[in-house]
């Protein structure tokens, strides 16, 4: 003990004057961070939190600084989308009164994306479709006048909401067709088991004015389409299990189906397949389509990609193959691309690592380890 005291005294003789000479640290004031203006390389990462599913969340991530900027709570098995201007995140979710159990409340929650604060909610009937996140679980009309929410009880229908007045306007039966694919100011299309698309047109008050059923555009038995459509310049495109691309033009009153094309050669067909939770991303300006691909057979449609294939939407030419094993990345199950002139690709793996690539060259820029627990879906404006 005496030795330690002597040592301390000796240290103080040498160092204490220096410590005393340094100015003290300034006092701090606890504040709340402000986000600043949105950037093209921000992305909303939807984490299903499957291992404790009542605690899903959306992480806002900056693809330039590789920092998490904040979080939006998302409850249980949520649907998530952005308003057309990107200013609002909407989360359709379920809460149980006692945490993991108790009375069920289905609700749409609105978050101001400039502050990540809740700004309002609309309580729903307890019918919200509990399923994987897609662009079509809930979606705004193009003019943001209506918000549509898919219901499955398991009877299928959808709710029409007024996001300004925060009210439910109507519920519209969809006769077994599912999800809400928005187009124009007042049209909602749904995918049907028969391979057709049902399109309901609404009146100004959000009630059904008319409906029409398309001719079949895919075969659900031989080559079903994934429900995770990708927004294109004039509509959405849907990939099939075997790699057919079905481009659907939604700019007219009824959807127009272009001739499908294939992302695989005849030799690759059935051996290389798209798959995962979010199966493709499109840079609309460049017309470049990014698809995680894997080798697999029937039943492998949820398997992630071991490569990302890049296609020119106009020529259908495959521009590149990006093998992921070189980066020691696990299979990629979700993908997104920023829409700016210097685009980056976000790719989430089965382990919820998020890789950031230069979208033009395929160069790996960053791997963010464990961005969430089960991150299956990306959103960006």
């Amino acid at each position, binding site marked *: 003990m005496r030795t330690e005291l002597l040592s301390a005294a000796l240290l103080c003789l040498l160092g204490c004057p220096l410590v005393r000479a340094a100015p003290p640290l300034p006092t701090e004031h606890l504040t709340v961070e402000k986000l600043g203006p949105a950037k093209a390389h921000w992305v909303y990462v939807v984490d299903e939190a499957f291992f404790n599913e009542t605690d899903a969340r959306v992480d806002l991530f900056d693809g330039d600084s590789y920092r998490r900027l904040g979080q939006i709570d998302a409850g249980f098995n949520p649907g998530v989308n952005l308003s057309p201007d990107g200013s609002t995140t909407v989360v359709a979710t379920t809460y149980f009164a006692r945490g993991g159990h108790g009375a069920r409340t289905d609700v749409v929650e609105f978050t101001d994306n400039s502050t990540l604060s809740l700004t309002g909610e609309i309580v729903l009937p307890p019918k919200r*479709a509990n399923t994987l996140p897609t662009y079509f679980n809930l979606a705004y009309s193009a003019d943001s006048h209506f918000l549509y929410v898919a219901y*499955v009880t398991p009877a299928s229908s959808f709710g029409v909401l007024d996001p300004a007045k925060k009210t439910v306007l109507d519920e519209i039966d969809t006769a077994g067709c*599912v999800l809400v694919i928005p187009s124009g100011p007042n049209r909602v299309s749904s995918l049907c088991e028969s391979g057709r698309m049902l399109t309901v047109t609404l009146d100004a008050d959000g009630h059904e004015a008319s409906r029409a059923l398309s001719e079949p555009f895919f075969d659900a038995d031989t080559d079903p389409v994934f429900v995770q459509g990708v927004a294109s310049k004039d509509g959405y495109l849907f990939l099939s299990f075997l790699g057919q691309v079905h481009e659907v033009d939604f700019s007219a009153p009824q959807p127009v189906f272009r001739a499908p094309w294939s992302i695989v050669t005849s030799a690759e067909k059935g051996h290389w397949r798209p798959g995962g939770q979010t199966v493709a991303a499109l840079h609309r300006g460049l017309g470049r389509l990014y698809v995680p691909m894997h*080798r697999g057979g029937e039943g492998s*449609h949820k398997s992630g990609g071991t490569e990302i294939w890049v296609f020119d939407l106009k020529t259908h030419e495959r521009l590149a193959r990006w093998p992921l094993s070189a980066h020691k990345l696990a299979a990629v199950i979700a993908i997104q691309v920023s829409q700016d002139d210097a685009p980056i690709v976000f790719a989430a793996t089965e*382990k919820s690592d998020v890789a950031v690539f230069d979208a033009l060259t395929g160069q790996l820029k960053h791997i963010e380890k464990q961005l969430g627990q089960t991150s299956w879906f990306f959103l960006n404006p």
Partner: protein
Amino acid sequence: MRSIDRVFEQSSRSLAQRTSRRSVLAALGRVLTGAALLPLLPIDRSSRAAASEAAASALDNPQSCEYWKYCAIDGFLCSCCGGSSHSCPPGTAPSPITWIGTCHNPADARDYIVSYNDCCGKTSCGNCECNRNEHEKPMYRLSRNNDVNWCMANADSNYHCSVSVILGVAEP
């Protein structure tokens, strides 16, 4: 513990991606047939025998994602959560609605119709995650879809785990 689970989950997923269940069985069959034709040489076969037993036991183990009845299950195996392949854990409630699949049992070479029910009313079990998708279809074919929460119509609709219940032999 979870990290260990996930390592095994990833490796089994990776295996499932590379090989279908039938291809494993076919390969195993070839190995066994071939082994019977080869002369018995004085070499140590214990490692191969152990590997074959491990593959066979995974197909027959209700706590393994490779178990034959789970050919299109998606979620946490109730057999790892206090239940079994066809019973819910204590304090949970079975989903009255479900979807139906067909799985092949290698032990008797029959196809069985199974119902994939969820067990509901508690939060995710979080153990033995398993996602297999033989003949699974997207949500527009709801009776063949494993993406939706089949607890949706329960009084307590939280999802806990999944089972696979034999309904009968599929007629050829």
